[in-house]
């Protein structure tokens, strides 16, 4: 039964990935991996070494002076994120239109739609970017709009039987309409889709119960795989949640006080379900590092250090993780296991939850060790979660015929 459903899932994943739009999108993702690696390591360098509140300056007692260039670098690296997406959309448009128009027997220069979709993706950045880089990047919005733009280009070409000049008035008008509509849409994006922090929402007591946390543990990987940004309240050590504040207040009243919200997004989801990124992706990275396939192993090695510091972006583009039914399942399983296992130990009283504030960029794998009042037990729980997530990912990576295919 299990074997059969597993096989069916792998087949579904392969069939889905063979669809022309998906296949060409994944190829575009993979082509961008070198740039993504540069982007990720630049982010990592900034947050580890130049952020004055980061872990490394804190533990080595380095007092960094305010650096005027730091804000500028933050701005540029955040802009880099959008540039990567814009390049992906451009590459995708090029290969998708090329193959799609060939199917219909048309020969067209794709430069105009490539430029239009590049601008479409970049203007998403202009519309949503905030200086504090708190804004959410929902890549699915850009993918959906680019796809619609491509469909409309194909539709126009078919309608006119490919007789229009590549840079003629009709195509220019098409480009103008696409960019106009997209700008209109961006200017009306609800705040909910721009912000990446929902502290009030996650401060509800619902998220201090196992069922609330379980729901979040299931939904977060789905959001990630669909290309939505996972809220920062779950992925970063968010001290703004009211449950976290109440716990901290209780601890400062009496050291071993009974905490009002022992299980909360910080003590459970951030600490256990987000090891290495959404879906305990550190487990996946370890599996990749141990693969025989050279290219897959190399991808794992590149992703290893960022994953320790909870960025799975290299895998999201390079494996890829986005829009993959096969990878969604182990992500949910690892996330759910981490959540249930950690919640159970916390509620049973064997470990004290993660409660204290930690320096920025503290890896989630060390979070409970630093910020729990039972550091060694909590570290043991975290390591077990990591080990089990490796075991969960292992068969899925083995069954995956897509990972590393385009490298």
């Amino acid at each position: 039964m299990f074997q059969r459903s597993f096989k069916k899932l792998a087949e579904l994943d392969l069939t889905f990935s063979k669809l022309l739009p998906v296949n060409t999108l994944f190829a575009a993702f993979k082509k961008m991996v070198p740039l993504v690696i540069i982007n990720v390591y630049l982010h990592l360098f900034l947050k580890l070494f130049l952020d004055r509140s980061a872990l490394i300056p804190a533990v080595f007692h380095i007092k960094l002076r305010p650096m005027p260039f730091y804000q500028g670098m933050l701005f540029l690296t955040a802009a880099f994120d959008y540039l990567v997406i814009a390049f992906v959309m451009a590459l995708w448009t090029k290969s998708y239109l090329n193959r799609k128009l060939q199917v219909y027997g048309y020969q067209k220069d794709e430069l105009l739609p490539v430029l239009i979709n590049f601008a479409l993706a970049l203007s998403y950045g202009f519309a949503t970017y905030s200086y504090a880089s708190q804004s959410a990047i929902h890549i699915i919005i850009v993918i959906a709009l680019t796809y619609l733009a491509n469909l409309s280009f194909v539709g126009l070409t078919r309608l006119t039987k490919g007789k229009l000049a590549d840079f003629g008035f009709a195509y220019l008008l098409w480009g103008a309409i696409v960019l106009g509509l997209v700008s209109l849409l961006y200017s009306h994006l609800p705040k909910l889709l721009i912000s990446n922090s929902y502290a009030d929402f996650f401060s509800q007591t619902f998220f201090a119960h196992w069922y609330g946390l379980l729901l979040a543990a299931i939904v977060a990987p789905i959001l990630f795989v669909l290309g939505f940004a996972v809220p920062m309240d779950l992925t970063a050590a968010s001290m703004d949640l009211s449950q976290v504040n109440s716990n901290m207040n209780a601890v400062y009243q009496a050291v071993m006080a009974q905490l009002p919200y022992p299980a909360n997004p910080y003590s459970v989801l951030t600490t256990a379900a987000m090891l290495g990124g959404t879906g305990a992706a550190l487990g996946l990275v370890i599996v990749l590092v141990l693969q025989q396939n050279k290219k897959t192993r190399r991808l794992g090695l590149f992703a290893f250090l960022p994953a320790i510091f909870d960025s799975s972006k290299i895998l999201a583009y390079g494996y890829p993780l986005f829009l993959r039914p096969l990878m969604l399942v182990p992500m949910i399983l690892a996330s759910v296991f981490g959540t249930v296992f950690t919640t159970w130990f916390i509620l049973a009283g064997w470990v004290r939850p993660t409660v204290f504030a930690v320096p920025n960029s503290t890896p989630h794998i060390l979070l409970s060790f630093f910020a729990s009042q039972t550091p060694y037990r909590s570290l043991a729980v975290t390591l077990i979660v990591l080990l089990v997530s490796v075991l969960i990912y292992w068969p899925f990576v083995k069954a995956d015929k897509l990972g590393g295919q385009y490298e």
Partner: protein
Amino acid sequence: MNKLKALMKKTVTSIHRLPKSGKVALILAIAFVAVLGILGRMWMLTEHQNDRAIQKARMEPVIFIPGSSATIRRFDDLIDTLNSQDKSNDNHSVLKVQVEKDGSLTYSGHLTKSNRQPFIVVGFVNNDDNYPTIQADSQALGRVMSDLQSKYHFRNFSSIGHSNGGLIWTDYLENYYSSQSFHIRTLMTLGTPFNFNESSTTKKTTMLNDFIEGSDNLPKDLNVYSVAGSDDYTDDGTVNVQSVLTGKYIFQKKVAKYTQTTVSGDNASHYWLPENPEVVNLIRELILQNKGKNPRNNTNKLKDESNKNDRPEN
């Protein structure tokens, strides 16, 4: 069990198969995390040694006390102005505490714990304009502060007292404040008559004499700003400027910094002093430490709305 063994064997073989550079990278990364873990844990331990004090430095409320005959709504306009000018878009949440005749406390509003500088307004139903009432209110303030601390666990705070509210703060700081429990950063008094209605500095009231006598108990690291309003060169319509200036006999050389300033212009009369544009600027710059978008516009707005409210107070 056998499957697990096989998996372990596979894992070891996979590690062996790794190229040399891969092995080195893996070992370095793991060693890096281990070192970070050990040093980080040590850092956390030292950080949390004196944590109760340090940790709660995160929340530093600004506590307002209105003058005689004024209610806990006295600072509503001022708070609206300050919130509307706040650049951070993170408004100061507001909690109001009313001390009833029987000494019981009535809470309204709420403090958002993510706010670093929320506002707390403490009002007294017993708010007559005389020294015994001020003494009783400052004693009650001691209870309010303990209650607030047990609820919200802050240590650092700043204070603003309008008119007799400044007298209540002064009496509290001399008689009930404990630096073991709290750390007051700033006291700002607005039109506070430290010598009641006396305009002559040679005639000191009992209250002023008591304050001067008890001034050694004032926190040594306190910053005091005494703001007087000037409506017609001698007073703000209610309180004599000279009475405000006698504050120097209490605070000068007893606290870290004592600054007197006189404001005039729009809303400089006693009642409207908290809404005076210069006062709003002073609060923002000296207590909230941020500069608003356009204070002038907002204070003009205040002026327009200023005719709707209560009665004069002292």
